[in-house]
């Protein structure tokens, strides 16, 4: 987990892989149902005006998360897109 960082910190256009999801059970379960599961690839696509929220590509869909929520998802960077 040493190289894992919160999803909200990884730059737009980077491919990352989810290594862990924190936060309360309810939040975690919800994020997992929406496709944010362990080992899944995530790509931040763009941020809104003011840097929040951010749109992510995950499992074929584009999902927007506020940075507060994206902080609960930990990512290992795979490669630059």
């Amino acid at each position, binding site marked *: 987990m040493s190289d894992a960082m919160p999803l909200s910190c990884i730059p737009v256009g980077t491919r990352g892989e989810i290594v862990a999801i924190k936060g309360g059970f309810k939040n975690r379960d919800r994020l997992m149902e929406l496709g944010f599961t362990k080992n899944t690839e995530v790509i931040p696509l763009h941020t809104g005006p003011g840097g929040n*929220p951010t749109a992510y590509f995950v499992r074929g869909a584009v999902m927007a998360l506020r940075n507060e929520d994206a902080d609960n998802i930990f990512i290992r960077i795979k490669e630059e*897109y």
Partner: protein
Amino acid sequence: MGAKICLVGNPNTGKSTVFNLLTGMRQHTGNWSGKTVGSAEGSFVYGGKSMDVVDLPGIYSLNPISEDERYAVDFLSRDDIDTVVVVLDATCLERNLILALQVIDCAEKAIVCVNLMDEARRKNIGVDLEVLHRELGVRVIGTSAGTGEGIGELKKAIYEGGSRCVHSSGGAAFSERAEEIYKKAVDYGCDVYNCLDRKIDRIVMGVWGLPIMLALLGVIFYITVEGANIPSAFLSSCFAAAESRLWELSGFMPLFLRGLLIRGLFRTVGWVVSVMLPPMAVFFPLFTLLEDVGYLPRIAFVLDRFFKRAGAHGKMVLTICMGFGCNAVGVTAARIIESPRERLIAILTNSFVPCNGRFPSIIMLAAIFTAGAGSMSGLGITAAVLAAVSASVIISLAASMLLSRTVLKGVPSSFVLELPPYRKPHILGILYRSLVDRTMFVFGRAVAVAAPAGALIWLLQNIHIGGGSLIFYISDALEPLGRFMGMDGKLLTAFILGMPANEIVLPLAAMCYSGGSYITDIESTASFAQLLCSNGWTIKTAVCTLVFTLCHFPCTTTLLTVKKETGSLKWTAAAFLLPLVTGILLCGIINFIF
């Protein structure tokens, strides 16, 4: 009783479009997650067998969080369902398959319908239906509901009945199994980072997001303002001609009855239909166009920071957008908000945004400002309408902030919003739905509500007790409050009588002003504005009326919907008082300052 079929799937996979194709009905469809919040039922006949179909709200899993999802999951657990049709989005199978596996695992009989095949082809995503069939163990049909492709095959499959899944996932987590199947069956050839959708997104949701949104709304308002004048003038002249013709023809009737039916009832209906209906009929399809393309969630994305600061949920933008069509629909749409606290905020503040019925009033009042400023151009009116609508959203946000700091305290809950792919709008469908369905609905309501209200006003004007008409006593009693708010008693009377439907408020006000006597024909929005001006209206009156149009008690339909959605008289009263008190205070302040 025919076989009972229900459609389930992730949000925005086109369930309602499939439903419409199967049943020939015209359920509203829209390109965003959460469009369907209740269920719709229809039926079709195939091979001499009748099949009842139920369209359910979209769900992400069988563990419901929001109110609309709970509804769908509860429905699925009923035991009288013969076949469950799982509708999947071919472009997003990696996630959609998780739900498909869950549903197949517990359903008695299931069919998988892989929808949006045409979109997948366009995006260079290959889906092998044969592999899906083998892996899932149930029948798999590929469809494109937008074009009708595969619907015949789906009907046949439903007729033959679904099949019970033969091999269960064997304990493996659904998401892992979904990934395994996905890798076998799908060839994903789409460049997710550089495709056209992302390029558009970077423009409309970037730093220019807000100005682009305002410009788009401005264009819609401009088309509404300019485009409504032509049918409006035409309808007015028709109604005026019909009125004088009816007056001649009804010579045999007693004068009192003639006045009541023609000068009261018929004239009010005529005004509502000719002056209020055209802007509604133009605005509604244009706004639906934005919805169909998939722009609404982008607005939610761009505006989210403001809603976060107000302690409201980001999805409230979607309920506000639905409120532009009808506040009652906006209140129901709040089911998509998971947190009860934020859902209540969205319900209570929804009537601050002008619904379709109040929209023509706003255009008319805007015309008075611009006339006061010396010009009558469509651009000026558009700017004033845009300002009024922006103000309504800002007031709605301020009220949300107030609520979330006082009676509905709490921290913003997590917010996840799906941004759907842009889709080509179904222009013909939109036109049909808004011009035929919607216009007929409004027309029907105009007759049902405006006619008795018009007759009532005429009676109030023409029944005299002790030297004054009844309306004189009523508006006289309301006069002090009206004066305090920069308006007058007659206007307040019109607002109160207009409670069943907002689109009749200004026509009723005009009735009050004209005193039931013969007045010049109302030919268009502009001449309607002139009538008001000739009755002592100033720009201040127009501003105060505009503010009160935005902030006053919701219409009866909306109140009943609030009661139904919250199940509480207390919150219904709050939904009544919050905008009313805000309106009285704002108008009072404006009146005091100017």
